[in-house]
């Protein structure tokens, strides 16, 4: 079984319920599972009726959860920069730079980057502590961007490091620095870049490894979720990330009596046939339940995984 599983899919198809049930089932089978929610709405807390937040919280035997708070992560990052600044920079310039930092801390791009950073940190640090890490992600586009991030950032960091090294080398030439000290260049900027590069590479290694990471798409047997899933699978294929599992959620009961539901069921059968045409290794079919999924009823749902 893969070590890291991303649950993706269109909004409202039941990603949180399915990922929680999947996690519950695996925890029951004796694996130590960490369920990570990246959704700002934090439905995992609501589902299990327990406050989780941004620390590892035990939900059940072998089942742990963590909710990433993107806003808080970005604030943490920016305040650490602010501290760093006040140690180095004069107060006048500090005021000027603070404006810029404040602008950055409210921009939506920062929250996304902070979220990705935290996800990468969790993958790097927690994958040795758990048998399985499950990410309940926000809708599709998000996750795809996360997977391309190490590549984009890697290229960026490489060119930055190249430029910085060149500049330092030239500066040493101008200052006539002796050869011995030329060889070991110590520079805080290079150190920061090196550190980032190392984290990125580590995460990238895990992510491109077929045995470690896989994707699971949740969808309903309806037209729009099917179309979105098809597109997402195509994109992931480009990055060599396999989608071996689909979860079809909210399947209607057999033989409905009412005419309306008979029609609806026939439509669903058609759509299900289209889902099987995608030739995915394993398709889980989850019925529509007559009750809400919560910390008790999740056992019912977990049986289907």
């Amino acid at each position: 079984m893969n070590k890291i599983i991303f649950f993706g899919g269109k909004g409202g198809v039941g990603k949180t319920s399915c990922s929680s049930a999947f996690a519950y089932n695996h925890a029951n089978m004796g694996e130590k599972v960490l369920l990570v929610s990246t959704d700002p709405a934090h439905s995992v807390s609501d589902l299990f009726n327990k406050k989780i937040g941004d620390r590892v919280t035990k939900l059940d035997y072998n089942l742990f959860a963590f909710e990433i708070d993107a806003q808080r992560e970005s604030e943490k990052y920016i305040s650490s920069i602010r501290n760093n600044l006040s140690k180095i920079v004069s107060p006048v310039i500090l005021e000027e730079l603070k404006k810029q930092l404040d602008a950055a801390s409210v921009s939506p791009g920062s929250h996304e980057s902070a979220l990705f950073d935290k996800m990468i940190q969790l993958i790097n640090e927690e994958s040795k502590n758990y048998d399985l890490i499950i990410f309940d992600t926000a809708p599709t586009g998000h996750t795809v961007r996360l997977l391309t991030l190490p590549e984009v950032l890697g290229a960026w960091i490489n060119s930055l490091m190249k430029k910085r090294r060149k500049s330092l080398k030239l500066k040493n030439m101008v200052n006539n620095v002796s050869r011995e000290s030329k060889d070991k260049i110590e520079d805080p900027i290079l150190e920061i870049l090196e550190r980032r590069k190392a984290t990125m590479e580590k995460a990238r290694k895990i992510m491109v490894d077929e045995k470690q990471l896989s994707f699971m798409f949740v969808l309903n047997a309806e037209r729009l979720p099917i179309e979105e899933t098809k597109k997402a699978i195509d994109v992931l294929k480009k990055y060599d990330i396999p989608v071996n599992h689909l979860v079809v959620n909210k399947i209607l009961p057999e033989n409905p009596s009412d005419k309306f539901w008979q029609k609806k069921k026939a439509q669903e059968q058609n759509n299900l046939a289209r889902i099987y045409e995608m030739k995915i290794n394993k398709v889980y079919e989850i019925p529509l339940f007559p009750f809400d999924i919560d910390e008790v009823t999740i056992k019912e749902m977990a049986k289907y995984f």
Partner: protein
Amino acid sequence: MGKFKLFMKDLGLFFEGALDLKGKSVGMLQSDIHNTDDEFLILCFADLLGIDIPTSYYALELLPYLEDELEGWQFRMHESKSVWAKKGGQLDMDP
């Protein structure tokens, strides 16, 4: 003989001063450093010039070490209207 040696030394000093080879090479190095640093800053903080890049969040942590260069850089970037004029200025027209 002593006089000749002295003359040669003076001659050497004369050409060194007239052509200013050392100053020139240092100047070339410095303009190279300058350009490299400017490129570095563009890669980090292009968003300050209004170019949206996805990496600007990650560049923020370099800010403490770059702030003294930042202001001059921003000014230069906004001022340099013509690439040709800038390149022309860098050419060494001295013999």
